[in-house]
C-alpha cells in the first residue's frame, strides 16, 4: 500500500532529528502565525492563487530566501565539521551524513536559491521594464512557481522522511545507481529536480515570448533595457539546456526504477555518458544564472553613474557570444576523465575564449563609470564587491581551463573556491544588488542604507575568509568533499579560518534580516515618494511605488533607449490620452493543484507507491484538460476605476 515507506524512514540520529524538528517547527510556526492573525484567506486570495507576476516574483524570493537560510545552515555545519575533524577527532557528522549534507547544500543553493532569486527578480521587473502589464502566459507563470515550490518541498521532505542523496549535487553514476545507492536519497534528488526543472523550462518559454511579443510599442530590441537582453539570452539557454536535464534525470530514474542499463557498470551501461549529459546541461546552467546578474549590474552601473551604459551594442553581442559559447565548453568539467589531448585542448581553448566577452563587459562597466557622476548607494557597493571577487574567480577559471593545470586542480578545494567565487561573487552579489535596487518599486520604500553598507561588508569579508583559504588548501593537495583529514597535513588552521568566514556570512544574512525589519519599521521615513528613488533610466521607474497591480494605467510608447531618462530630460508631458478598460487574468488555484499532484507523483515514485503515482499523473492531466475546456476568463477593470485608483496614488504621492 505504501510501497517502501515505513517508520524506518524517520530520522534516528540526533543531528538528523534536530534538522527535522527545526523544519517542522518552522513550518508549524508560520502556520500558527497565519492562524493567529487570521490571514489564511488573505494569503490564499491575494498571494497563492495570484497570477500577478509581481506577486509570483515575491513568492519566489521568499522561498529562495528561506532556502538560502537552510543552505547556509548546511554550509555552517559542513565547515564546522572540517574545522574540527583533524586527526583523531572525527567531528560530529558521520561520513554519510556529511556527504548527504553537501549534496543537499549544492542542490538547494543552485536550484532553489539561485534559480529562485533569478526567476523572482525577473518576474518582478521584466514586465514593468518592457512597458507591459504581465508576462506572456500568466497561468503558466503560476504553474512554474508552484512546480518550483513542489520541488523544494520534496527536497525538504527528505529531511523528515527518508534521506537525501549522498552522491554530490550532480549524482554521478555508478555511485548514484542502484548498486551503490540503494536507498531513497538519490530518488529524492532526481524527482525534486525533475519537477522544479519543468517549472524552469516553462518559465523559459514564458519569458522569451514576453520579451519578443510584449514590449511597449516603439521599443525595438535594441532599445530594450540591457537587463531584458540578459534575460532573453539566459532564457534561450534555459529552453535548450533543461530538456537535456529532463532526459538525463529520466534515464537515471529508469535505471533505478525499471532496471534499464543506461549508466550501469555491466550490460553495456556507460557512466561516462551521464557525465557528458549532465554537464551538457550543467554548464549552460551556470551561465543561465550569471547572465541576468550581469544584466542587473549593467542597469545599476548606468543608473548610479548617471550615464548611459557604455557600449550597449557590444554588451548585447557579448551576452549572445557568452550564451553561444557556453554550449561548447562542457567537457572542461571532466578533463581528467581521459578524453585525449585533442579533445581536451579544444574544450580548454573554447573555455578560455569565454573570458573575452566577459572581460569586455567588465571594461564596459568601468567605462560607464568613467566620466560619470557616481552615487555610491548600496547597489554600487555590491558592484564593487562583485568586480573584486568575480575577477579573481575568473582568473582561477582561466587557469583551470588549461587541461594540464586542471589535472592538478580538478575536484580539489581550489575548484570549490573557484565556483563559489563565481556564484557568490557574481550571482549572489548580483541578485542581492538587484533586490535592493528594485525593492522600492515593489514595496514603496527603500531599504535602510547604512545597515545595507554593513551587509555588503559582512558578505565580502565573510566570502574572502571562507573561500580564499580553500584556494590554498587545494594547492596543498586537499581534495573536495572530505569529512575528515590527517592532522599531519597542516590543513586545520585553514579550515578554521574558512569556518569563521561562514560565520561572518551568517552575520551578513542576520544583518539583512535586521535591515529588513528596521526598514519596515521606518518605512514612512524611507518612503519612495515619486516612484523614482534612484533617478532611474528605464520604464519601471515611471510608475508609482509600489507599482499598481496593473503596472501601467496607460501602456507607454517608446522612442528611445533609456526612455524614462530621456522623458525626464526633455521634460515631456504626461500621456493625456483617455483611460481604457484593463483586462487581467483571474486568480486560480489550478497552479497549486497541478504542482501538488506533481509533488505527489514524485513522492510516490521515490517510495514505490505505484497507485499514488498513477493517481497523481491522471490528476494533472484532468486539471489541464478541465482548464482548457472551462476557461476562467479575465477580470475587466473599467476605465473609471483605473482613473480613480490613479488619482488616489497621485494624492498619496503629493501628501
Amino acid at each position: 500500500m505504501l510501497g517502501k515507506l515505513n517508520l524506518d524512514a524517520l530520522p534516528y540520529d540526533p543531528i538528523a532529528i534536530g534538522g527535522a524538528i527545526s523544519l517542522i517547527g518552522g513550518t508549524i510556526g508560520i502556520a500558527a502565525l497565519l492562524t493567529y492573525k487570521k490571514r489564511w484567506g488573505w494569503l490564499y486570495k491575494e498571494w497563492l492563487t495570484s497570477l500577478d507576476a509581481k506577486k509570483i516574483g515575491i513568492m519566489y524570493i521568499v522561498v529562495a530566501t528561506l532556502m538560502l537560510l537552510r543552505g547556509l545552515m548546511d554550509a555552517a555545519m559542513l565547515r564546522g565539521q572540517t574545522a574540527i575533524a583533524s586527526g583523531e577527532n572525527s567531528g560530529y557528522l558521520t561520513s554519510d551524513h556529511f556527504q548527504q549534507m553537501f549534496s543537499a547544500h549544492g542542490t538547494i543553493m543552485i536550484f532553489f536559491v539561485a534559480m529562485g532569486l533569478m526567476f523572482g527578480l525577473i518576474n518582478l521587473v521584466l514586465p514593468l521594464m518592457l512597458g507591459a502589464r504581465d508576462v506572456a502566459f500568466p497561468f503558466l507563470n503560476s504553474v512554474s512557481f508552484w512546480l518550483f515550490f513542489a520541488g523544494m518541498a520534496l527536497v525538504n521532505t527528505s529531511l523528515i522522511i527518508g534521506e537525501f542523496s549522498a552522491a554530490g549535487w550532480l549524482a554521478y553514476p555508478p555511485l548514484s545507481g542502484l548498486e551503490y545507492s540503494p536507498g531513497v536519497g538519490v530518488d529524492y534528488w532526481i524527482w525534486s529536480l525533475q519537477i522544479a526543472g519543468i517549472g524552469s523550462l516553462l518559465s523559459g518559454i514564458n519569458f522569451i515570448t514576453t520579451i519578443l511579443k510584449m514590449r511597449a510599442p516603439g521599443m525595438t530590441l535594441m532599445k530594450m533595457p540591457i537587463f531584458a537582453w540578459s534575460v532573453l539570452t539566459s532564457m534561450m539557454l534555459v529552453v535548450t539546456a533543461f530538456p537535456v536535464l529532463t532526459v538525463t534525470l529520466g534515464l537515471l530514474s529508469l535505471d533505478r526504477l525499471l532496471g534499464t542499463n543506461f549508466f550501469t557498470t555491466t550490460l553495456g551501461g556507460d557512466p561516462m555518458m551521464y557525465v557528458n549529459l549532465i554537464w551538457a546541461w550543467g554548464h549552460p546552467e551556470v551561465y543561465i544564472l550569471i547572465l541576468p546578474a550581469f544584466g542587473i549590474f549593467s542597469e545599476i552601473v548606468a543608473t548610479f553613474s548617471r550615464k548611459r551604459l557604455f557600449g550597449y551594442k557590444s554588451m548585447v553581442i557579448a551576452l549572445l557570444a557568452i550564451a553561444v559559447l557556453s554550449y561548447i565548453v562542457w567537457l572542461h568539467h571532466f578533463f581528467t576523465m581521459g578524453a585525449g589531448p585533442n579533445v581536451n585542448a579544444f574544450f580548454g581553448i573554447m573555455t578560455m575564449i569565454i573570458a573575452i566577452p566577459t572581460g569586455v563587459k567588465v571594461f564596459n562597466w568601468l567605462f560607464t563609470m568613467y566620466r560619470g557622476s557616481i552615487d555610491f548607494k548600496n547597489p554600487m557597493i555590491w558592484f564593487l564587491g562583485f568586480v573584486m571577487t568575480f575577477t579573481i574567480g575568473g582568473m582561477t577559471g582561466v587557469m583551470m581551463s588549461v587541461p594540464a593545470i586542471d589535472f592538478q586542480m580538478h575536484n580539489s578545494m581550489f575548484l570549490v573556491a573557484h565556483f563559489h567565487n563565481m556564484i557568490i561573487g557574481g550571482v549572489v552579489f548580483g541578485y542581492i544588488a538587484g533586490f535592493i535596487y528594485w525593492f522600492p518599486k515593489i514595496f514603496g520604500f527603500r531599504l535602510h542604507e547604512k545597515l545595507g553598507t554593513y551587509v555588503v561588508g559582512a558578505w565580502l569579508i565573510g566570502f574572502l575568509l571562507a573561500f580564499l583559504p580553500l584556494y590554498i588548501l587545494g594547492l596543498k593537495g586537499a581534495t573536495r568533499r572530505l569529512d575528515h583529514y590527517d592532522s599531519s597535513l597542516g590543513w586545520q588552521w585553514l579550515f578554521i579560518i574558512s569556518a569563521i568566514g561562514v560565520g561572518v556570512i551568517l552575520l551578513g544574512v542576520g544583518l539583512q534580516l535586521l535591515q529588513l525589519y528596521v526598514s519596515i519599521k521606518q518605512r514612512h521615513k524611507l518612503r519612495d515618494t515619486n516612484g523614482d528613488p534612484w533617478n532611474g533610466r528605464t520604464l519601471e521607474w515611471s510608475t508609482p511605488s509600489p507599482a499598481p497591480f496593473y503596472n501601467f494605467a496607460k501602456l507607454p510608447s517608446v522612442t528611445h533607449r533609456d526612455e524614462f531618462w530621456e522623458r525626464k530630460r526633455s521634460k515631456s508631458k504626461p500621456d493625456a490620452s483617455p483611460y481604457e478598460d484593463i483586462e487581467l487574468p483571474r486568480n486560480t488555484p489550478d497552479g497549486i493543484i497541478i504542482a501538488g499532484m506533481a509533488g505527489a507523483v514524485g513522492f510516490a515514485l521515490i517510495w514505490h507507491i505505484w497507485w499514488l503515482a498513477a493517481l497523481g499523473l491522471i490528476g494533472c492531466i484532468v486539471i489541464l484538460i478541465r482548464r482548457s475546456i472551462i476557461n476562467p476568463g479575465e477580470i475587466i477593470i473599467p476605465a473609471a476605476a483605473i482613473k480613480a485608483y490613479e488619482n488616489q496614488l497621485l494624492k498619496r504621492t503629493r501628501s
Partner: protein
Amino acid sequence: MSHTLASTQNSSKVQLGFWIYLMTDCILFATLFAVYAVLRNNTAGGPSASDIFDMPFILVETLLLLASSFTAGIALLAAKKSMISLARKLLIATLVLGVSFLAMELYEFIKMYNEGHSWRESAFLSAYFTLVATHGLHITAGIIWLLVLLPKFFRSKIDSLTISRLTLFSMFWHFLDVVWIFIFTVVYLIGDKTL
C-alpha cells in the same frame, strides 16, 4: 468572451510559445537520439537491432502515422474554410490512424518482452525502448488532445479559439511525425550497420 485585438495578439503569442516548446521537445528527442547512438552497439551478448526488428511491420506502422499526419493537415485546412463536417471526418480518421499506430507499437513491445528481450537485457535495448516509448507517450498525449478537441467539431460552428488550438495540435502532430521519420531511419533502417 470578446474577440478583440487582444485575442489575435493572444494567438500570435501562443503560437510563438508553442513553437518554443516544440523546440525544447526537439532537444529532448535529440538527446535521446544521442544516447541511442552511443549505446546502439552495447548489446551485452544479447540481440542487436537486426535480430529483433520486423521491417515490414514497422513499415506499415510508419505509413499509418504518415497518413494520420496527412489527414490532420487537410483537417486544419478544412476547418479554416469552415468545412466542419469534412474536418470532423478527417480528425476522426487521424484519431483512428494514430491509435492504430500506437496499438502496433504496443504489440511490438509486448512481443519483444514475451520473447525475453526487455529493456533490462542490455544498454542497447534500454535505449531502444526509451526512445521509441517516449515518442509513443507523445503520440498518446496527442491522442488525448485530439479527443478533447473533437467534441467541438460536432457543432455547427467553430470559433477562432478552436482553430487556433487545432493549429497547435497539427504542429504537434506533424512534429511527432518528423521525429518518427528520424526514428525509422536511425533505429530501424540503419539498425546495427556501421556507417
